[in-house]
C-alpha cells in the first residue's frame, strides 16, 4: 500500500466547505465537519457529476412540516442533481445499495493526509 498523500495544511479545510484535492490521480472531496475530517471520491454514482455540491446536516422529521436537524450526521450532495450521501459511509440516503467510495483521512502535525 502506498503512503498517505499530503493534500494540504489543516487550516485549509474549513467546517462544512468541501474542497477537492488530487491523490493518486483521483479527485477526492475532503470535508471537515466540526472536528472530523472525511474523504470521498468526487464522482457521483448517478451521472458522474462532481459530488461536492455542499455539506449539510441530515434532517429528520417527526411529522409533516416539522424538521429536526441531526447535527452530528452530515451529508454531502452532488452539485448536479442533488443526490445525497452519508458523509461517513458514502451510502446514498434514498438507496443504501448505492455508495460513493470513502477513504481513510488523518490530520498530523498541521497537515492532512488521505490514504488512497
Amino acid at each position, binding site marked *: 500500500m502506498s503512503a498517505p498523500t499530503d493534500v494540504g495544511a489543516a487550516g485549509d479545510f474549513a467546517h462544512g466547505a468541501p474542497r477537492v484535492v488530487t491523490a493518486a490521480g483521483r479527485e477526492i472531496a475532503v470535508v471537515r465537519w466540526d472536528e472530523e475530517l472525511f474523504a470521498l471520491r468526487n464522482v457521483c454514482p448517478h451521472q458522474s457529476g462532481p459530488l461536492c455540491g455542499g455539506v449539510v446536516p441530515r434532517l429528520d*422529521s417527526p411529522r409533516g412540516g416539522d424538521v429536526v436537524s441531526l447535527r452530528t450526521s452530515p451529508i454531502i450532495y452532488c452539485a448536479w442533481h442533488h443526490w445525497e450521501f452519508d458523509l461517513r459511509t458514502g451510502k446514498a440516503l434514498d438507496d443504501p445499495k448505492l455508495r460513493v467510495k470513502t477513504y481513510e483521512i488523518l490530520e498530523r502535525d498541521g497537515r492532512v493526509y488521505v490514504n488512497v
Partner: protein
Amino acid sequence: MAVSTSTSERTSAARATAVIDCGVVCNWATRADLYAYLPSDWRDYVPPGQPRFAVVMPSWNNPQGDWRPEARTTGNGQAASDVAAIAAHALEPDVGKATLLMDEGALLPAVAATYIVEQLTVAANRWLVDRIDEIADNRLRGIAVLPAQVPLHAAEEVRRVAQVECIAGVHLRGNVLGKPFGHPVFHPIYEAAAEAGLPVVIESGGDALIDVPTQPTAGGLPMTYGEFASLQACSLMTHITSIISAGTFKTFPDLKIVLMGGGAAWLPWYLWRADAEWKGIRREIPWVEVPPSEYFGRNILVGVGPLARGDDGSFDLSGLLSSIDRIETMCCYGSLYPRWNSDSADAVRDAFPASWHAPILRENAERFYRW
C-alpha cells in the same frame, strides 16, 4: 364421485370472486329533495324557490350529454336521479359490493355560500343514507360528501358519518378554498378519516367550477369540453403530489386516498418523475421518507376509469402500465355508471392481463374501503 356444493358454499365462492365497483354515481332529483333533511331554521333561511345557493355549473357542456341515455333528465328530475334504477343496473350478480357517489353533492363544497352549503352537505349525506336504506341491498354503500369549505366542520361530519354503518368513505371534490389538498388546512379531515378508517375519495372535476379559485388545468382554462375531459388527471396529479409532499402520510400513516375520474394511464410518467425529483430535492421535504411511488398501493389507490385505450388496439394500456412494478396493487375499479364514459368490469378484464383482475376488480378496494 361428484362432490355436492351447498348453496352457502356457492354464495361464498361467488362473493370471493365478485367485483367491487367503487364508483356508481347518483343525484337527487331536485334540490328541494334536500329540504326535508335541513333543520327547520335553515329551511326558512333559504326557501325552495331560491336555488341560487347551489349553482355549480361548469362552463363547458358535453355536446352529447354527460350521462348514459337511460339516466338522462326526465320529467322534473335531474340526470342520474333515479337512484333505485341506477343501483339495480350497477348491482349485477357478479358485483359483490358497490359504492354510491353523489355527483352534484360532491360539488357542494365548491360553493362559496359557506353556511347554507355546509347545512346542505350534511342534508345530502342524510338523503344518501335514506336512499341506500330504501334500496335495502347490503352490497351497497355510500360515500359521504364533506363541507370542506371549513375543514374543521368537515372533520366533524367525517366523525358523524363514521357512525353510520352504510358509509364506506368520504368524498373530497369541490375546492372552494383554492388550495391543493395537501395543504395543512385540510389535515383535520385526514385526521378524522384516518381515525375512522374511511378512505378519502378525491374525484376530478372539483377544480372546474364558478366559485372555485383554482382551475382544472395548468396554463389557462380549456375552451372546450373535450380539452377538459382529456386533461382530467391534471388536478388529481396536483392534489396527490401536494398530499405526499406535505407529509400527510407521515402525519397520518393510516390515511387512505382514492383518486377517481382521471384514469390510470398517467401513472407511469408521473411515478417516474415524482421519484426522480424526490431523490434530488428530498431535503425540502424530509418528512417524505420513501419515494412517492411507495405510497401508491399502500396509502393511495387510483381508479382505472375512464379507461384510456384505443378500440383498434393502437394504444396498449396494459403494456404502458406494466412499466411500473406492482402497478396492479395501485389501482381499483369504479364504473362511474351512469356517466357517459363509464366502463364495465368486462372492459377492465379486456384491458388488463388476467393476473391483474382480482387485485384491480376486488382485492385493493376490499382493503381500502370500510365495508
